């Protein structure tokens, strides 16, 4: 008898290991779609919550079942879900991570769903970064902008011309002279804050690859995405990075800013090289002294970054139409404005852009929108090799600004990137 009890106790202990996997009963009623998104900034999350709620209550065909995942490890969790086959119907991606999923067939092309009208209304940058292998895999409700913020008082005192818009940016010589003049001001300890307090990571690629591109180089040869050789370590890229390195060596910028607010709080820097997300703190700190300066023409053309979070429908979804229904709701101009008025990002549709107080005609951040519309913005490399490219480039940038040999560091980055592409047999684009 005691043995029997023992056995059952044992069984009870083991059972939970094998339990689980209950079968779900099919329920009549609305189609339920699972939606994953990153739990971002407070305002962003609140808007999305409100949108899910409104969407669920305004119709009864599709019910959205939202799951918020912490932003810090969002990409890792999505990748792991891919391996275990647990992807939801609809989810959002951090910019260039999208291509890996599209390449491996985990996303469906959205082309059949996108109307001509919607397509013509989207910012070209949204289409560019959402397209892989000739098909559109993702749409964003907002985009990002990168330019130079300036302190008007310092600029005027130093006698530096403030460009009006993207048609008359500084060229290399003018930028150089501006740095020299601003450095001479007694108010500045250094001239330009490159936000290195963000630390080595995606910021380095987003913020500093435009420098290489403006000089005429790039992160990879975009004709076939097979090699970075001769491009990332070519003469233009080396020249660009040597110039960037010299900014730190000659004291125009510092590698370790003590905090975030040298430009807008302590006002010991005259310029800040950073994106649209700093609008609020900059505005609060500098008031009417804040000016937005378009990206300079360091070489033949001015270049800036683009890209933000965007939505894609997975190939595991049994109800892509239902998922699209929710996505197209999010893509309505009014919903886009609802989101961008809250998080301050650039609205992804021209019709929404026109109505935006910040980015519309005459708005304080119009330059960001102009850069995205006017071909100044360049997408980060559209290839599944992107995780390796960004890691290798960020490492090279870190070593270069701390005094490494530019050519050697870029050679190392090229070697890592090319190795990764070779390991994956050139990342053949699916038919």
């Amino acid at each position: 008898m005691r043995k029997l009890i023992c056995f059952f106790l044992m069984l009870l202990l083991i059972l939970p290991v094998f339990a689980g996997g209950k079968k779900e009963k099919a329920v009549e009623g609305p189609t339920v779609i699972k939606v994953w998104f990153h739990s971002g900034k407070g305002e962003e999350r609140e808007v999305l919550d409100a949108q899910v709620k409104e969407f669920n209550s305004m119709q009864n065909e599709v019910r959205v079942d939202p799951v918020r995942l912490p932003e810090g490890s969002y990409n890792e969790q999505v990748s792991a879900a891919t391996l275990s086959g647990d992807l939801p119907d609809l989810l959002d991606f951090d910019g260039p991570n999208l291509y890996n999923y599209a390449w491996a067939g985990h996303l469906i092309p959205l082309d059949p769903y996108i109307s001509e009208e919607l397509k013509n209304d989207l910012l070209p940058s949204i289409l560019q970064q959402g397209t892989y292998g000739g098909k559109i895999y993702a749409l964003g409700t907002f985009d990002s902008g990168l330019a130079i913020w300036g302190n008007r008082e310092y600029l005027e005192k130093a006698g530096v011309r403030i460009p009006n818009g993207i048609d008359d940016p500084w060229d290399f010589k003018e930028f150089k002279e501006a740095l020299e003049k601003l450095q001479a001001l007694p108010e500045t300890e250094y001239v330009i804050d490159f936000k290195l307090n963000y630390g080595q990571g995606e910021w380095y690629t987003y913020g500093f690859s435009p420098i290489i591109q403006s000089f005429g180089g790039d992160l990879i040869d975009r004709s076939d995405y097979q090699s970075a050789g001769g491009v990332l370590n070519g003469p233009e890229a080396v020249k660009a990075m040597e110039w960037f390195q010299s900014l730190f060596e000659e004291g125009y910028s510092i590698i370790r800013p003590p905090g975030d607010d040298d430009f807008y709080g302590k006002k010991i820097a005259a310029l800040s090289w950073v994106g649209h997300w700093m609008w609020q703190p900059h505005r609060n700190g500098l008031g009417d002294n804040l000016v937005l300066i378009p990206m300079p023409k360091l070489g033949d053309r001015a270049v800036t970054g683009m890209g933000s979070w965007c939505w894609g429908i997975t190939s595991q979804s049994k109800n892509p139409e239902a998922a699209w229904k929710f996505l197209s709701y999010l893509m309505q101009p009014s919903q886009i404005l609802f989101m961008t008025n809250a998080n301050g990002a650039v609205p992804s549709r021209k019709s929404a852009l026109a109505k935006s107080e910040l980015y519309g005609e005459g708005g304080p951040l119009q330059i960001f929108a102009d850069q995205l519309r006017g071909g100044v913005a360049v997408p980060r490399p559209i290839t599944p090799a992107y995780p390796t490219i960004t890691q290798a480039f960020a490492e090279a940038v870190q070593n270069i600004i701390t005094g490494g040999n530019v050519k050697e560091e870029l050679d190392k980055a090229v070697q890592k990137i090319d190795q990764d592409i070779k390991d994956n047999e050139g990342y053949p684009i699916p038919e």
Partner: protein
Amino acid sequence: MSDQTTQKGTVLKGRNTLQAHKKKEAVAAWLFSAPALTLLLVFLIVPFILAFYFSLTNQRLIPNPNLPTRIIGLTNYIRLLSDSTFHRAILNNFYFAGVVVPVQTSFALGLAMLVNKKLKFKNLFRTIYFSPVVTAMVVVAIVWGFLFNPTDRGFINRLLQSITFGNVQPLEWLHDPKLALPAIMILSIWQGVGFQMIIYLAGLQDIPNELYESARVDGANSWQQFFNVTIPQLRNTTIFVAISTTILAFKLFTQVWVLTQGGPMESTMTTMVLLYRQGFRQLRVGYASAIAVIFFLIVLAVSLIQKLIMKEERAVS
């Protein structure tokens, strides 16, 4: 004659029952260890075998059906040998363990001796020293991140300035390649020392008082008592503490990931951080698995060597 047979029968029967009893005991033993064994199998042994298999392949985190996973032999291992980041990670692990294990162990012993004294509020002190252990490492790391603020407003920089009368300039701690790993050592020791303290405390209370009494009768002072009674009596405790701290030190990940993610300039790169980065950020599960296998062998070797050097005294019954 008949008497003899019966006797023989009883002996045989006795032997049979003994064997049957042993067999029953074996069954019970297996049954009782079954839950633990199942869990070990599912969460440790199977994953390890899988990791070993993956390490011989080019498995990606995001699988591509058009480009199936292939077995690529020892390529991952050969590449690891020439990966300078991996070398740096291993060196950092040894540096970290080399500092943290002796320092943390001595601190733990010191604290244990302190709270073992007949002090007022001794339970309060025990609780205070133990409280970092029950605090989640992520929380500890974030709080220390604030304390290590690189400006002169940072708590630790202020403290250094006031005790040196302003002779120390604000240190950049987590942003300085030379100071980042030591900064992480400091917070790791602070967080972990309470656990070892409790183990030492148990060890201290196990030492029979007669040993101290006779030592005192022989005229030993407190130092002599400490070196000739306490330390030898704590031998097994010390071995356990040293080995478990070593293994924990090699697993260094959370605090680094929260505070520096391996930077600046790989100065805080550890094997675990590299493994996570390769596997989850760069999607190279095969390569990350190779790191895991090599790492396992290194930790195994270190613990075996430690055990050999500090031969444990086993109680012989």
